[in-house]
């Protein structure tokens, strides 16, 4: 084993980590937008719209991410849509995460009891207070754990974006591997970097939970 090339390329790997986190954040932001719009559209009065949202969710959740990103990158140019690797990855991550987010957010909305809202008004809370304290916070609290683990999963999924050469950690690792042929050493260290990243994220997400969302129930 020879870790020389990995040590030499370490600054590049760290920049790759930044790329990975950037992809994950952008993908998650898009996923939340798709998730919220999906939940709204899923309760549409038009059956066609509802059906469209349901099929979107099932289609995305039952096909591999790799095939989805290949489809966007290789197939869409044939119908005139050409997107660069990194935006492709963000769109693919957002669409994929969005399908899961729709299901998660829907569960949160359903968990709010109507009587709870009425009780809020009966206690003399203003409309904005009811929304903030009675609807938003409990709903967020209900979906936060699933949303957080989905976020970690999305961060790990970014490594598949290397298949279309988006700028992230795995792509950088591939370049270093190609130059040095030290495959095991490179990927071993990169695996460790992913592990540290997801550990830091988990700690951070737990901190938000305990600081902002955790309160005694009953």
């Amino acid at each position, binding site marked *: 084993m020879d870790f020389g090339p990995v040590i030499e390329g370490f600054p590049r790997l760290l920049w790759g980590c930044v790329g990975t986190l950037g992809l994950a954040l952008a993908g998650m932001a898009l996923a939340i937008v798709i998730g919220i719009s999906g939940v709204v559209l899923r309760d549409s009065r038009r059956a066609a719209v509802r059906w469209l949202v349901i099929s979107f969710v099932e289609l995305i959740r039952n096909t591999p991410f*790799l095939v989805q990103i290949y489809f966007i990158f290789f197939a869409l140019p044939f119908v005139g849509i050409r997107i660069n690797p990194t935006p492709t990855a963000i769109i693919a991550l957002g669409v994929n995460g969005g399908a899961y987010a729709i299901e998660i957010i829907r569960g949160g909305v359903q968990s709010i009891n109507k009587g709870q809202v009425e009780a809020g008004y009966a206690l003399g809370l203003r409309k904005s207070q009811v929304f903030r304290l009675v609807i938003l916070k409990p709903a967020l609290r209900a979906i936060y754990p699933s949303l957080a683990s989905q976020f970690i999963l999305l961060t790990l999924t970014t490594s598949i974006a290397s298949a279309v050469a988006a700028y992230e950690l795995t792509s950088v690792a591939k370049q270093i591997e190609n130059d040095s042929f030290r495959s095991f050493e490179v990927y071993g260290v990169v*695996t460790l970097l*992913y592990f540290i990243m997801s550990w830091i994220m988990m700690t951070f997400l737990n901190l938000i939970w305990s600081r902002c969302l955790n309160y005694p129930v009953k």
Partner: protein
Amino acid sequence: MGEKEFIFLLQGLKWTLALTAIAFAGGIVSGLVVALARTSDSRTLARVTAGYISLFQGTPLLMQLFVVYYGLALAGLRLEAWQAVAIGFTLHASAYLGEIWRGSIEAVPRGQMEAAKALSLGYVSRMKDVILPQAIRISLPATVGFLVQLIKGTSLAAIVGFTELARAGGIISNQTFKPLLVYGVVGAMYFLICWPLSLLGTRLEHRLATATR
């Protein structure tokens, strides 16, 4: 895309299914060991398996495949590509199934274990006759859910260079210059396998929810 290309895709599909079957079967056996070690009274065993699980859950599947693939080669083992990725997927499955089953074992009411101990049943009998039959029922929805994840996950073997369905699609798409059609068909094939399983998982979940209410 002609008949020949379609048959090539079907052969890829066959490998996807074979890889899934090997990894799932291997994962069931090793995952059970992981789950039992994770819930055992020995603190060392529980800690080691907890670390094992969080290592697999905190790193991308693609990296796990790369490390196993190149690690085995570096260790001097001459394996074919499919054998190396099968080992990688099996390890991955053992960690995920181990964690799912740990949760299920812990979800069995405590009194069951205490009653079994009061009846002076040995560890093997306690697990085999009392805890596991109940835990398996609880774990079924999540286990089926993981199977779907595993089928989709085998597509990553394509990146390592093993020709299963996703890579077969890539090859045909390069030959025919019809990626829209080819990836559409490949996606449909995955969907037709995964969707019924997902529906089954949801149904099992509902049934379990009504049974335990």
